[in-house]
C-alpha cells in the first residue's frame, strides 16, 4: 500500500483552496456590475444546513474569476460541533450569447462530532455549471464531486469503552467522496439575487447513497460595491 504523510495532502488541499477558491450560486449576467457579494442560505445537504458566504470578483476580463469563502453548519442542539468551510473560486470559462459555462474548485475543511468521535477532514469540491443567464433571471445545471481526502479521528471515552484499541489519528487513503448533480435557478432585482438549487447525491461507488440522498438550497445574494470600488 502506498505510504505517505497526510501533511502533504493537507498542504495540497490548502494550496488548491488558495489558488482557485469560489462558490455560491451566481448570476453571471449581472456580476459585472458589482465586485462583492454576501450570501446567506438554508437548505438540505447532509442535514438541515444554514450557511453564509462572501465573494469577491478578482478579475472582470474575458474570464471572470470570483473568490469565495463559505461557512455552513447543520441544525441540532449543539450548533458548533459540526461545520463546513469552503474557500475557493469559480471561473467563467466560456460564453456564447446568454449561455455561460463556469467551473469551480474549493478547498474544504469540515468537522463532525457526536458522543463517540470527533472528525476533522480536508477535502476538495470541484464542479461545473452550464446555464442560460439573463440580467433578471437565470437557469442552469451543475455537476460536481466532493472528495473527503484526509480525515482525523479522535474517539471519545464512550467509544473506547466499547473498543479500547481503536486507533486515533489521520487515516488514508481518502475516506469518502460523493458525486452531486442538479439544477439551479434564480431571479435578480435591485442588489439582490434569490437563488434555488437542488439535485441528487450519489456515493463514489455509483451505487450507495447517503442517508439524505439529495440536496436543496434556497439562497440570497446581496451585491455590494460597484465595479472599480475596492
Amino acid at each position: 500500500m502506498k505510504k505517505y504523510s497526510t501533511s502533504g495532502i493537507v498542504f495540497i488541499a490548502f494550496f488548491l483552496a488558495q489558488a482557485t477558491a469560489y462558490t455560491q450560486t451566481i448570476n453571471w449576467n449581472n456580476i459585472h456590475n458589482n465586485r462583492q457579494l454576501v450570501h446567506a442560505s438554508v437548505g438540505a445537504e447532509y442535514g438541515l444546513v444554514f450557511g453564509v458566504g462572501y465573494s469577491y470578483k478578482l478579475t472582470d476580463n474575458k474570464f471572470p474569476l470570483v473568490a469565495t469563502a463559505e461557512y455552513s453548519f447543520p441544525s441540532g442542539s449543539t450548533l458548533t460541533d459540526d461545520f463546513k468551510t469552503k474557500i475557493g473560486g469559480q471561473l467563467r470559462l466560456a460564453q456564447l450569447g446568454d449561455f455561460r459555462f463556469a467551473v469551480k474548485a474549493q478547498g474544504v475543511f469540515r468537522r463532525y462530532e457526536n458522543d463517540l468521535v470527533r472528525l476533522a477532514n480536508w477535502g476538495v469540491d470541484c464542479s461545473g455549471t452550464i446555464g442560460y443567464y439573463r440580467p433578471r433571471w437565470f437557469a442552469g445545471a451543475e455537476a460536481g464531486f466532493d472528495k473527503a481526502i484526509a480525515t482525523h479521528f479522535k474517539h471519545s471515552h464512550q467509544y473506547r469503552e466499547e473498543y479500547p484499541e481503536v486507533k486515533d489519528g489521520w487515516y488514508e487513503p481518502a475516506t469518502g467522496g460523493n458525486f452531486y448533480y442538479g439544477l439551479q435557478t434564480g431571479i435578480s432585482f435591485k442588489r439582490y439575487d434569490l437563488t434555488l438549487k437542488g439535485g441528487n447525491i450519489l456515493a463514489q461507488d455509483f451505487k450507495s447513497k447517503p442517508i439524505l440522498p439529495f440536496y436543496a438550497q434556497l439562497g440570497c445574494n446581496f451585491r455590494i460595491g460597484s465595479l472599480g470600488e475596492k
Partner: protein
Amino acid sequence: MIFKNYFLVPALLTFVFSCSTKDRTITGPGNLVAKTVDQDPGLPAIQVNNSLLHSEAFGPAGATMIVALHGGPGADYRYLLPCKDLAARGYRVVFYDQRGSGLSQRFPKKSYTAPGAKAMDQLYDELNAVIEHYRTRPDQKVVLLGHSWGGMLASGFTGKYPGRVQGLIVCEPGGLQWKDVEHYVKDSRSMKLWSEVLNDAAYLDQFINGKEDQHEILDYKMSMLSSKNEITGEGAFDPTVSWRDGAVIMDALFDVGEKYNTDFSAGLNDFKKPVLFFYSEKNRAYPDSWAQRITAAYPSVSRVKVPGVGHDGIITNQKAWTGTTLPQILTYLSTLQ
C-alpha cells in the same frame, strides 16, 4: 540560516512522522472496529454450518440450556451478559453473535439475500446448530431468550420447530409480521428534521463512504448511528454497550423483509407452552396496546411491563434486571421443570 535549518528540518520531520498514516486505513482490521473471530484467534469461537461464530457458554453443561439471542439484526451479545446470572442459578447459558453480527465472521451481502424468501432459514439453521453444538444429552431442555430482533428470531425458530424448544422468553420484539416491523421501525426512528441525532447521522456521509461489502467501514458507520435513541431509550437513559455492529446483515435482512414480508409468527399456533414476554415502560414506541398486538401471536403468554427503563434496560439496567426481569425469568423457568 543554518541554525534555522537545524531546527526546522527535524521539526518538520517530526511533524510528518506524527502525521504518518501507516497502518491506518479505514478498511484495516482492528483500526476503527474490533476484529472478528476469523481475524483474532484469541476470541472464543465455535464453528457451525461453515461459519465461525463468536460464542461462549456458562453454567453446568448438562443443565437446561438458555440460548440468549441478541438484537439488531447485526448487534452482539455483550449487552446480554447480565443473563450470566442464570448460570449461577444452575442453568446452562449460551451466548453467540449471529452470523455477520458482533464479532462473528462476516459474509457478502449476496450470501444473505440469495436464498430469497428462505433467507431466514440460514439463521434458523445456525441457531439449531448452536444448540446441537452445546447439547450434551438428547433430553436436555432448551429455552430461547431473545431481545428485540433476537425475540423475532426466537419466535420464528419456535414457530418453525415447536418441538425443539421447551420455553420461550421474548423481550420487546418490534413486530412479528413485517407490516408491524415496518410500523415499529418508523415509530421508533421518527426523529425530527432539525434534531441533533438526525443531523449527526446524515452529516457523517460526507466524511466516510463504504462500498457494499466493506464491513469495517459500514460497521463503523452503523455504530455511529445506533449509539442513542431517545424514543426507545437505547443508550439515552439506560446504559448499553456493544462490541461491533454488523451493518451488512442488517441491511440484507431488511431488504429481504421488505421484498418477501418475512413472517416471524408463522407456526406459533403450534407452540402451546407458555411464553414470557417483557416490554418496557419508557419505550415510547412500545405502549401497552402495541405489546397486546404483538403478543396476540402466542397461544399462551404472560406479559410483564418493566418499570423505569427503555428498550435495552429490560436487561442492561441492573435495578430492573435484579428487581424485575431476573426474578420473573426464574419463576418462569421453574414452571418448565
